[in-house]
């Protein structure tokens, strides 16, 4: 079942004499439950693609359909609600809210919708990610790896259609990087979570079932590994 489809997505920054084309005709689709890695050199356009898929940015042209919704036509409020419910975003620098405890950070997407968490699911996530002892801590009391796990837990709490991870191991040491990738794989396997991992780390990309490589804003390869 298709969960994401990009059709002729272009993104051009600037205007006039020096426009910069970050994405140039991106076409691909992802099925539910897939674990896809998007790789490419720095400046290839992979982060731009992630921002567009996450509803953070809009394409200049083309369509992005996630779970049946064309997110390229959403207004800012609709885009925010889309991010809250359909896309879980994980960033390199965690992007946690420093004024809220770990538990409140994880539950924030639900809180914004005034929804109560499913306690069984919440416990499953925090136990899986090894956060059950840290729920009352503040983000600045955690290590980098722990903060990233909180970010993953937060992105999973709403059971989003798509989990978008932008260089989630870029700020972590080898041990923590390995753990985070294991967590992503675990969530993909046990929760059937669709994951799109943006990384320039080949080793990390090899953990995915499919690798899409981008260069100069275009897909140059789309390799199914298993």
């Amino acid at each position, binding site marked *: 079942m298709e969960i994401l489809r990009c059709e002729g997505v272009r993104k051009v920054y600037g205007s006039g004499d020096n426009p910069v084309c970050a994405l140039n005709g991106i076409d691909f689709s992802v099925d539910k439950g897939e674990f896809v890695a998007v790789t490419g050199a720095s400046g290839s356009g992979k*982060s*731009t693609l992630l*921002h567009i898929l*996450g509803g*953070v*940015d809009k394409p200049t042209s083309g369509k992005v359909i996630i779970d049946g919704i064309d997110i390229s036509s959403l207004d*800012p*409020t609709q885009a*925010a*609600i*889309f*991010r*809250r*419910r359909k896309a879980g*975003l994980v*960033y*390199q*620098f*965690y*992007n*946690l*809210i*420093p*004024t*809220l*405890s770990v538990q*409140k950070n994880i539950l*924030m*997407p639900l*809180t*914004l919708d*005034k929804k109560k968490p499913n306690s069984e699911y919440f416990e499953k996530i925090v136990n899986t990610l090894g956060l059950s002892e840290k729920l*009352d801590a*503040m983000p*600045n009391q955690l290590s980098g790896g722990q903060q990233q796990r909180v970010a993953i837990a*937060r992105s999973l709490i709403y059971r989003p259609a798509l989990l978008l991870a932008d260089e989630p191991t870029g700020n972590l040491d080898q041990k923590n990087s390995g753990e985070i990738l294991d967590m992503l794989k675990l969530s993909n396997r046990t929760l059937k979570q669709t994951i799109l991992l943006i990384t320039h780390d080949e080793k990390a990309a090899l953990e995915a079932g499919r690798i899409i490589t981008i260069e100069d804003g275009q897909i140059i390869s789309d390799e199914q590994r298993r």
Partner: protein
Amino acid sequence: MWKDFSSDYIKNNRLSSLSVRLSAFISALLLSLLCGLFYNAWKYEVERIELEEGAWHSRITGRFDQKDVEAVQHFANVNKVTISNDASGLLIIFDDMKDILTDTPHIARSIGAGPEQISYNHALMAMYLIRDPNDKAPRLLFPMFVVILLMASFSLIAIIHNAFAVSMNARIHQFGILSSIGAAPRQIRICLMQEAFALCTVWILAGNLLGIAASMGLSQLSNILLGNDIPGRHKAVPGCHPLVLILTLGITAITIAVSAWLPARKLSRLSPLEAIRNTGGLQLKRPRKVPVLTFLFGAEGELAQNALTAQKKALRTASLSLISAFLAFTIMQCFFTTSVISTKETYFERYQDTWDIMAVVKNTSADEFSETEAIRKLGGVESAVVYQKASAKRIVTEAEMSEEMKSFGGFSHAPDGAALRMDDGWLVNAPLLILDDDSFLEYCRQIGAEPRLDGAVVRNLIRDVTNPDFRHPVYMSYLKTQPADTAVSNDVTPDNPPGAVSILRQQGNSEITAELPILAYTQEVPVLREEYASTDYYELVHFIPISLWKEIKGLIGGAGEDLYIRVIGRKNVSLEELDTLQSQIDQLIGQSYTLESENRIREYELNNRQIQGIRTAFGSFCVLLAIIGIGDVFSNTLGFVHQRKREFARYMSIGMTPEEIRKMFCVEALILAGRPVLITIPLAVIAVGYMLKMSYLGVDEFMAEAPFVPIVIFMVFVLASVASAYALAWRNVRKICLAEVLKNDTMI
């Protein structure tokens, strides 16, 4: 390091250090202005008391000679001893005022005087915050000034501290780099302290001097504005005590040193990595529960409160200033309202029909004054009374006391100064009101007593001293009369004391007596603007005619220095008519005597103007405080746009809509502006409750005059200003390009 780093930094970042300079200047200016004004107001009040009541600290009444003066002069703490002008006692000035209450009884004993002969200059002592436990007057104004001064000073000190904290925190990253390349913590501290003093020294000095000059200028301005309006007002001599200058300079310098030292120390203790990593983002050390705001506004309420808590330091000045301003404004308004109700009830309304013009003829005795008839003949004069006051003593025996008085314990509650136990009764104060003969005869007729000039009328009333409510006192007969309930009785029988005579005793020597026939004991007093037994509840007031005074004054003495003239004009007299009448009286008497006169309507208007003036002055000060707070809100909301954009980007990235962020922003503004109101309301209720208790006013009386309108206007002003600051900031903050903010790694 100073040459290479700080001086260059200051030169190249003039704008960013401007807030520190301005904060130092404004704080020094306001602090010295405030202290200067306070000092000048205090100085004026002390001068006024010394002029009106004398500069003495304590008085021992009685007949004393030069030998006694010398004996007192030998006491260690005594600065000066004089015999009063009317020779009624010794006036003592001490070196150290705090020992007045303990030293005076020793001195009195050494010259054979009893405790009942001691009195203190309570008004003057109150100006030095010395209270006699027997002084029942509230004297709240001076402590209130001190409290407001302290609150304002604290707020100003906080401004400087905050300016430094914010300025230094903004440079953590920079000092992290410096530290990473080898700057020692001590070097960083010294560097920051040098910067602080280089930035502030000139501005502090300028602010202090300007503030002192402004306070003296304002004092001079009060002479110009009020000089001719207030009878008896002396010219204010603006001054600046060196201590005030040193104190304000010292406080500002110490504040700056501490304000710079605290963040400098914190900054120097950070590891280079911590400092470099610092992104200035909002952080909380532990989770906070905000159930009320979460309940009211949902997640936005919690985020808003947390954001404010995380910005606590940056917003400290704003919060403190707004809270102090609103609190001071509300309490000041309530205080003046209570004071106005109290003055209106106890003075203007009570004495509404007892006078139109009052004149005080200086250093004149009633029997020397010859213009009484001429005053009565002036057009528009319905009634005129000329009177003088004198002090004497009298013994009240057990048999003379009324049953009602005995029922509350007789003299058992009386302090020594009010009633002294003697062998044959209690020696009490017996103030004399010496009326001109015609007025006395008229008074006798008014109360139904035989109009004669050879006797006295005694005010036969005493307050229930067990009931401290001075606003609703319960009065009863002081002495036994026959029959008890009638207003007047001169049918004294052998079985029903008091007798037909009153034996008055000299104030200083109770052995010297004068015997006065009693024409009546009455509960009705002459129509005069006088209060009887207001501080000494046990005094037994005697009204006598001038003719009788001439006969006994040689024995009794104790006459006051001044003479009083009370004039009543026609009913519903206008201000213009009273002004004309007043100037006629001034012309008539002023040529031969030194005179101070006032008229009721002008006095009422002047009183209102004075209260309005003080209200405006305090109100302006509160507005100034609020402006400081609001200015800080503006500088925070507009100055940290970058930081707020990063914060909002975080929220948006996890699905918070722009509307929800705007709601959070509004809640934040509401908390900031609403907090002063929420803190003030319970404190104001407590303060008003205390004021009402102290002044024995009812809640309904206060509510009828409660200053809701100015308080609401002030509240709306604060709310609107904070809302404007946030609205302006929102215009900048809302333009978030989420992708751009998220792209910048250093921001997240």
